[in-house]
């Protein structure tokens, strides 16, 4: 009984302690420094991975093209800001809408696909957007990319800040939002429908699940969250080009890899994966980049292969296996 009581108090107190730490952390480091940038990106990538998790984890549709939605969000808000001086906050909503709509349209032809076929189709979609963005220079600025118009005063309305702290909390909020949505979906009817579809599409349909509606809905939610992340990223980074924003390796594969490392289809997988991968990448970049282009990316690919060979279900499963072996 006693240990039971302990458990009931343990969970809320851990959460409370973690939230206090997370909220205090940005004030313990330099507000424009390196550490806060890493933490900010960590929450951004955890949010991106969480939106991938909605289709990748719950429905087991392995997307290799989530960079498409990320880039669409980025271009939408930046173009609206440049041409119509629209506040990035409204641009955030616009970016989410464009990405969500595209997600819906893309899922019409792709929802019947499974496994390798789905991965191929989504990969191709993002690659095509990349090549369009590279060539349609009059709209997108071509390979040179776009810059967010810099304002010296900055300010909340323009989503530009002198300190790194506001963006830390914006990305944290985005992560909380995407995790909340993921949790809501996984606990509600649509979550069970997605799992049923994952387990057996034919019987899911037979028991009356509207396959089309469920898949399109999941795709819209996932895509629009990813689009929102794209908007936040460009506001944070000030600059982007087609090859980086629609990148197969550094966006599409990275968000999926974060989920794989943390555990696909688990609520905390994206955060665990991001906490593991992003600091590791920073170490690589600072120690290996000096040795020449490509070395840190090479290490990245090797890690991916190693994880797949050792435990494709991720760190959580790996720790479970190890502790079981040790008899803990």
């Amino acid at each position, binding site marked *: 009984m006693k240990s039971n009581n302990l458990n009931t108090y343990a969970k809320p107190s851990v959460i409370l302690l973690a939230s206090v730490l997370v909220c205090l952390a940005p004030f313990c480091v330099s507000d424009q420094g390196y550490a806060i940038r890493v933490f900010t990106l960590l929450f951004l990538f955890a949010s991106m991975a969480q939106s991938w998790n909605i289709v990748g984890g719950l429905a087991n549709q*392995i997307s290799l093209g989530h960079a498409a939605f990320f880039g669409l969000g980025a271009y939408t808000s930046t173009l609206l800001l440049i041409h119509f001086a629209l506040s990035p906050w409204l641009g955030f909503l616009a970016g989410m809408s464009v990405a969500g709509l595209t997600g819906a349209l893309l899922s019409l032809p792709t929802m019947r696909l499974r*496994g390798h076929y789905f991965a191929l189709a989504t990969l191709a979609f993002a690659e095509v957007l990349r090549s369009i963005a590279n060539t349609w220079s009059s709209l997108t600025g071509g390979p040179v990319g776009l810059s967010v118009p810099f304002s010296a005063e900055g300010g909340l309305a323009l989503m530009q800040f002198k300190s790194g702290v506001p963006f830390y909390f914006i990305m944290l909020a985005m992560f909380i939002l995407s995790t909340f949505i993921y949790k809501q979906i996984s606990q509600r009817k649509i979550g069970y429908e997605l799992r049923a579809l994952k387990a057996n599409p034919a019987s899911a349909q037979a028991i009356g699940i509207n396959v089309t509606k469920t898949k399109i809905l999941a795709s819209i939610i996932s895509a629009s969250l990813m689009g929102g992340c794209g908007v936040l990223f460009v506001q944070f980074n000030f600059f982007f080009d087609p090859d980086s924003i629609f990148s197969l390796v550094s966006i599409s*594969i990275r968000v*999926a890899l974060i989920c794989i490392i943390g555990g696909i289809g688990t609520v905390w997988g994206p955060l665990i994966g991001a906490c593991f991968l992003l600091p590791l990448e920073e170490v690589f970049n600072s120690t290996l980049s000096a040795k020449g*282009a490509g070395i840190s990316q090479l290490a990245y690919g090797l890690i991916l292969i190693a994880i797949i060979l050792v435990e494709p279900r991720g760190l959580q499963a790996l720790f479970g296996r190890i502790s079981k072996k040790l008899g803990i």
Partner: protein
Amino acid sequence: MALIQAILDGLMLGGVYSVISIGLTLVFGVISIVNFAQAQFLMIGMYVAYYAWAVFGIDPIFGALLSFAVAFVIGYLTQQFLISKVLKAPEVAQIFLTVGLLIVLDNLALILFGSEFKSVQTPYQNESIEFGGLIVSAPYAISFCASVVAGLGVWWLLARTWWGRTVRATSQDRMAAQLIGVNPEKIYRITFALGVALTAFGGGIILPYLTASPSVGEQFGVLMFTVVVLGGLGNVMGAVIGGLAVGVIQSVSSLFLPIQLQNLTLFCVFILTLALKPEGLIGRRTG
């Protein structure tokens, strides 16, 4: 006339597309793995042929044979030490293993060969053949002929040899093949090796008119997937027809559409095929 010329150009290009895509479809048909790193073997082939030319002065068409050999060895080892470990794993593991391989190969090339574009000079690169008002540039014609030879070679291997029979048997029913004494592991290793070697061979023969760079895999990845999906994943004959079709679509669409939309045309073909006829336009899968 412009249309006939465009179709002819498309067929010349398409012949090469067929050869580089046969490997991808063969691997899927026999091993049930989509090798996302297949286009990176094209890049390997281009570099091997380039260095064969730069160091020994070997013409890329013959250097392509060396590309074939090098990729065969790499492919054999890849199957033995990497792919074979995930054959029974969930699909997500299979997908990301070859995706990891893609990242490794791209960056190895960047580290070893640098990011600059490398091209060869051949005595025939500015030559062209003219007949009846149609013009075919010599490098395209030569690589097309090499593709035909390679294609016939694969056909002979699969359709006319005992080894080809065991490969087809394994892809149809692994268990039954095992019962009659075929070692599927061995078949898989050689099939994967042959598959990537064919693509590398294609990389060698296109070197006279294309430049080698670490990002060349990116250019060809989606194109190769379009070819094999059009022909039906796993269908070797389908890849040949799909390759020619993609070449013609690319070349003809450039008559009507701005260059920006060329990739979009390919993507529409790709996604429509996947959505409407995932088994491919050619129909029955042989794999």
